[in-house]
């Protein structure tokens, strides 16, 4: 039995009167690897951003380690966020900084490490993602897959307890996508972190998840192990994982 690290209660979010999250309830245990699946634009990334308070809910609460994250302010918000690492959909690397500076930025700005320590950590993390030789390159010189790997190295630089992955394999070729998946599995087991990934790539979901959650019409439609997802009779989940145009899911 997992202890709940993250607890989402009745989360609502609207954009321009259009409901995106419509009462999401979800518990995430310590050390679990959860994958949230769902159609493009169904609110997966919005849900992920609420976990680290990059967005504020219209209604509902998110608890982290038993504390309501809406109550964090100033320094407590900074310390809370430092317990997370996040890989963004477009990797979100800083164009004006080199790969090494990107990975070390959070450490440098936290003022808890000396420059030599930061250099060591940066090289260690870049070696973990196989990019130590690209430390002095700029993001514009890297391919999509390399940028994601730098994004991963940056996400783990701070030794976070929770890793959030926003569409980690989107826009990559199948082989590079698989390399990223392997890397995520390796990092999750090696660093023993809790991880939450959102994706619509089912191959990736089956590979990295302990538990798969499907978001549909702003709510959690299905919550089960990957094996149970494969064999389910739920028509919504079935349509999604088999990629059928016809079925209960209407494409807007």
């Amino acid at each position, binding site marked *: 039995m997992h202890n709940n690290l993250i607890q989402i209660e009745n989360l609502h979010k609207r954009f321009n009167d259009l409901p995106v999250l419509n009462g999401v309830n979800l518990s995430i245990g310590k050390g679990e690897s959860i994958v949230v699946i769902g159609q493009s634009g169904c609110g997966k990334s919005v849900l992920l951003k609420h976990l680290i308070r990059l967005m504020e809910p219209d209604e509902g609460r998110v608890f982290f380690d038993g504390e309501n994250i809406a109550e964090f302010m100033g320094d407590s918000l900074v310390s809370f966020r430092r317990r997370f690492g996040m890989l963004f959909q477009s990797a979100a690397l800083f164009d004006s900084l080199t790969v090494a500076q990107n990975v070390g930025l*959070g450490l440098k700005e936290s003022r808890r490490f000396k420059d030599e320590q930061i250099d060591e950590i940066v090289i260690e993390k870049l070696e973990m993602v196989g990019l130590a030789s690209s430390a002095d390159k700029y993001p514009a010189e890297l391919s999509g897959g390399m940028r994601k790997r730098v994004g991963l190295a940056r996400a783990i630089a701070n030794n976070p307890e929770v890793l959030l992955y926003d569409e980690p394999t989107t826009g990559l070729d199948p082989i590079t996508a698989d390399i990223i998946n392997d890397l995520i599995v390796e990092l999750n087991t090696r660093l023993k972190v809790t991880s939450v990934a959102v994706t619509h790539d089912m191959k990736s979901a089956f590979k990295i998840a302990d538990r798969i959650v499907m978001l549909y019409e702003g709510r959690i439609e299905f919550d089960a192990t990957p094996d149970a997802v494969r064999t389910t009779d739920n028509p919504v989940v079935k349509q999604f994982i088999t990629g059928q145009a016809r079925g209960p899911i209407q494409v807007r």
Partner: protein
Amino acid sequence: MEYGVQSIGRRGVNFINRTGGLCILLGRFFVALKDVPRSMGLIFEQFYIIGVKSLPLIIIISIFVGAVTAWQAAYQFKFIGAPLRYLGHMVGKAVIMELSPVLSALVFAGRVGAGIAAEVGTMKVTEQIDALDSMGINPVRYLVMPRILACLVMVPILVLFSDFIAIMGGLVISVLGVDISTETFMSGFRDSFKLADFRNGLIKALVFGLIIGLVGCYEGFRTREGAVGVGRSTTNSVVISCVLILVFNFIFAIILFRL
């Protein structure tokens, strides 16, 4: 009819939203000033990008501003029969009190304000600002404070340069084109020079710098919807900065230069 009323209402709400947003960002900028000592590297980088790199453009426009002021003044003097020994007086006053601060600020809004809005806006739509937040780095301290501070410091310094160069431009045209001597031009300028005018011009420049930095950052932060959004923010930042500069210039004219 209903559409018209709705449109006015929406514009009104937008205006209030923007004004409130600018005030909040200004407050957060002042709070972030406490972190100036630890952000010196970022601040000096912006001093260079925003200030030093604007110098060539400011020099070019100042030469022509001074030159055309002298030429137009001489033309009007001839028309009304005023003595040309007042040309230095006229050029000096016009440049120091109005032309240098206002034209430099307008050009600066186009070059620097647009650049800030485009850079911050691109960072917003590519999730780089979210990435800063997710790492516990305050984007106002990391991005906004160094940029606004650089505008605050650099616009008055550039206006100083502009004052000097525009007057030199006026002098050259007066000597070569209007055919008065350097001594006549300079004595007219010296006799009319008041330190208060010069100081008031710099106070205006300080406020214009604040407007340009603040509006550029704010419009950048408001950016949505990809490349189109970045384009819109860039345009908005220039338009809003220019309008505010001219409105505040009028307010300053009433307060600082009483009839």
